[in-house]
């Protein structure tokens, strides 16, 4: 199909050259054009003279000048005589030139010349207008397309709570956790509270915090359990929260209870893994992740710790409204013997949390405790 279009266009281009070469025509010589022009000009001088545009004394001279040119053009026309017929071979040569040049240049550039020039065109690539792509059947639609489609819809109807909930799930699936959390928050606002929705919101918050159960997330899970104390996911995350906070015993308690209640649930294996991790840890009150890290060889351990700290620092640089996070970061730097960084982090924390007087007080306490100076 597309090649038919190309052929038609090429045909038009060829015809517009070949046709005038083939059809006889009357030539319009320069002398003829000049004669008409100078006649016009003579008339114009008369007009200008009557309008006072040219000094009366000059009219005669100007007329004489133009008349002289008119005469010359007239003579030239006489000299030219009848137009001579051009030789046929020249037209043939011109036609051949066009016949070769047009297809050769067009195809050479578009399709390319083997082993010399890669063609510019991609004749087999169809158009891809966004609308059509978004309306394609769901079966062969990838997640990003589905998201784009929903986003477009939500831009028009931001009050569509169901839409918000669906898009939140999709966001989470492709790892856009921040946006997922925001969408769940909107869905909660629009559709009202259900334990399931609150729980999903909490899970998105955890994902957004790179697996850390933040205070907000913990609040979400606690709300969920107040409405429905049996929900395993919320309980699991609260267990994780306890583990991350260093409360190993509480974590083990929650995880064991979960496994005991539903030993054959699909998620039971994951919980068992957590339990195993906690069990393998040293008996000191180290948190789960910390314990895992402690089990590593020293070089790997340092790298792992540094990686976690860097991740935390990066997150805080993006969003500094997390007092817990800052406290943890400052502490970590001190543990790693990087007092300078700790001081810098403390400064950044003060700037980010300037409006939160409670957090500022805690930062001051920490600074005193770690001997970083209370500046």
């Amino acid at each position: 199909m597309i090649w038919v279009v190309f052929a038609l266009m090429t045909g038009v281009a060829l015809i517009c050259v070949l046709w005038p070469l083939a059809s006889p025509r009357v030539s319009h010589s320069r002398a003829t054009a000049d004669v008409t022009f100078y006649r016009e000009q003579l008339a114009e001088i008369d007009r200008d003279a009557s309008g006072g545009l040219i000094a009366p004394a000059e009219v005669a001279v100007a007329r004489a000048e133009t008349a002289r040119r008119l005469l010359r053009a007239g003579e030239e026309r006489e000299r030219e005589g009848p137009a001579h017929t051009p030789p046929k071979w020249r037209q043939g040569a011109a036609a051949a030139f066009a016949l070769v040049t047009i297809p050769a240049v067009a195809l050479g550039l578009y399709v390319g010349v083997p082993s010399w020039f890669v063609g510019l065109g991609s004749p087999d690539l169809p158009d891809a207008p966004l609308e059509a792509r978004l309306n394609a059947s769901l079966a062969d639609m990838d997640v990003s397309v589905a998201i784009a489609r929903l986003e477009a819809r939500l831009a028009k109807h931001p009050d569509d709570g169901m839409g918000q909930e669906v898009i939140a799930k999709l966001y989470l699936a492709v790892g856009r956790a921040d946006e997922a959390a925001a969408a769940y928050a909107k869905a909660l606002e629009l559709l009202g509270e259900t334990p399931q929705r609150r729980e999903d919101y909490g899970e998105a918050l955890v994902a957004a915090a790179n697996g850390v159960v933040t205070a907000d997330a913990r609040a979400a899970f606690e709300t969920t359990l107040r409405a429905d104390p049996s929900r395993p996911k919320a309980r699991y995350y609260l267990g994780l929260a306890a583990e991350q906070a260093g409360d190993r015993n509480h974590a083990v308690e929650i995880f064991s209870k979960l496994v005991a209640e539903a030993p054959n649930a699909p998620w039971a294996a994951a919980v068992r893994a957590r339990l195993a991790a906690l069990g393998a840890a040293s008996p000191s009150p180290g948190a789960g992740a910390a314990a895992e890290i402690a089990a590593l060889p020293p070089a790997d351990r340092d790298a792992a710790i540094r990686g976690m700290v860097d991740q935390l620092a990066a997150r805080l640089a993006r969003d500094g409204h997390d007092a817990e996070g800052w406290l943890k970061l400052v502490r970590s730097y001190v543990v790693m013997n990087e007092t300078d960084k700790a001081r810098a982090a403390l400064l950044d924390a003060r700037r980010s949390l300037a409006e939160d007087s409670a957090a500022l007080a805690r930062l001051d306490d920490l600074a005193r405790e770690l001997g970083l100076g209370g500046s």
Partner: protein
Amino acid sequence: MVVEAGHFALVLALALALVQAVVPFWGAQTGDGQLMSVARPAALVIFGLVAVAFAALMYAHVVSDFSLVNVFENSHSAKPLVYKISGVWGNHEGSMILWVFILALFGALVALFGRGMPDQLRANALAAQGFLAATFILFILLTSNPFARLVPAPIEGRDLNPILQDPGLAIHPPLLYLGYVGFSIAFSFAVAALVDGRIDAAWARWVRPWVLTAWIFLTLGIAMGSYWAYYTLGWGGFWFWDPVENASLMPWLAGTALLHSATVMEKRDALKVWTIFLAILAFSLSLLGTFLVRSGVLTSVHAFASDPTRGIFILAILVLFIGGSLTLYAWRGPRLKPGGIFAPVSREGALVLNNLLLTTACLTVFVGTLYPLALEALTKDKISVGPPFYALTFGPVALVLLCALPFGPSLAWKRGELLGVAQRLSVAAAAALAIALLIVSLRRHGPILAPLGVGVAVFIILGSLIDIGGRVVKRGASLSVTWSRAIGLPRSIWGTAAAHVGLGVTVLGLAATVWGVELIVTARAGNTFDLGPYQVTIADVASREGPNYRETYAEAIVRSGGVIVAHVEPAKRFFSSRQTSTTQAGIVTLGLGQVYISLGDANADGTMAVRLYWKPLVTLIWIGAMIMAFGGALSLSDRRMRIGVARRAVTARQLPQPAE
């Protein structure tokens, strides 16, 4: 399929343009009418093909086809339709396509309307156009192809800079390009005349309408661009002597000179060699302008070297066309026969002076724009040349030009009487002097430039009106006679007068900027400030959500002697998607002046920095430009300028004619 059809159409247009550059040229050299006759249909089909390519690209932008790199990088599905369309030429690749589209359009117009033209001239001119088109399409295809594809297609585009999402910017580039590229016709005709070795008054008649058309669009384009800068950039300036602006001013100055010298050539068969030179100059400067803006050389001389293909291609094109045409000029120019003679004091003499001054002015801008680039390339020293440089160089030249301007149209052709003209203009001069003195006495301490500027403006406006009046009004003639004389006056004379009045009006607006009032204040809601003749109250400062931005806005009330005359709402918008903010100046036109308010940053204590301006008569700057363009259009509509005129005259010749 649409996209690839457009792509192929562009490639095909290149192939056909090559044929158009060769076959008609060969025909003209050998006097073969058959070969020459290829030029016209080829020009039309090239235009058709480029139009298909342009439409395909526009279609891709409108339907957000992100399988095109160009669409992906410069569009976004959520953009309003009008900015999707303007986004086509809001980027390098698309704007080059627009450039070629307009080039092909002008070629097609020459083919359509140039019927009475001598075959040789048309064939050579269209061949030159074909060569131009082929070169530029090749440049587009090899270095900036807007049809490059992306697999797999991304789902969302990268948006357009919010500051570029503006109706002013949507129409500014097309206007400017119509101007730039319009001069290509004059260039092609100049090359044709040089190749032919023959040039006469008739040549000027063929070229003049095209020059005039280009000049009208360029005038409007520059005015539009300056108004855009004025209201978007938020600090009330309308001309910065920025290289980008200078790039459009230079072709305008050369084009204005060309317009005037072509008149001399048409009327008096004089200044032929000079006119050819100006035609080459105007288009060369247009090329330079396009590339100064497009090549990135303004951003960095070294950017030129960092993208060698594009940079070297651009340099090659400039050398080819500017160098080539000037070489041709040096070789063939001296052979052209000199034309009519005239006295120094005559219309011709005045127009020569006009030309000299305009080219000199152009030279000053040229040096100011390119000297820093040259210096940096040679010595690595970085300098900038600011307004003071132009005030010292461009300023005096322009002043002399403006003062001499009213004399031109009043002088007769061939030999004029300076005394008579001076007598006629004495009224205008006296009025101008009186007004200037009045201003000086009223405002003792103001800068001298303002009364001087106003005086010159009044002189130009009154001088032009007096000239027209002198032609129309005859002592003792009845009103109906006067009316019929006014109607009978060629429109080009009205056009000249209008364009000159427009220039005077612009100068008046420029002079009045001196009396502007500017306040930078820290304001909070409820504060009132005196601003020239007005009092401005910042009634409220608040914020709200827009479609894709958040804005802080102020409600300002403008009072005059206690009476509310206007409400203004300046705002500052923040686009979170690009982390960019834009200033939306609040502008209200009161009389011919404007109150202009723009918001700055909020301070910690809740106050806000605010800039307030009172700009008396500022609108005259752009009104004047529009009057100039209107004058151009009036001239263009003159019977004598109509392009098919010679052909009609040919038919008329066969009828019995009155004896001359």
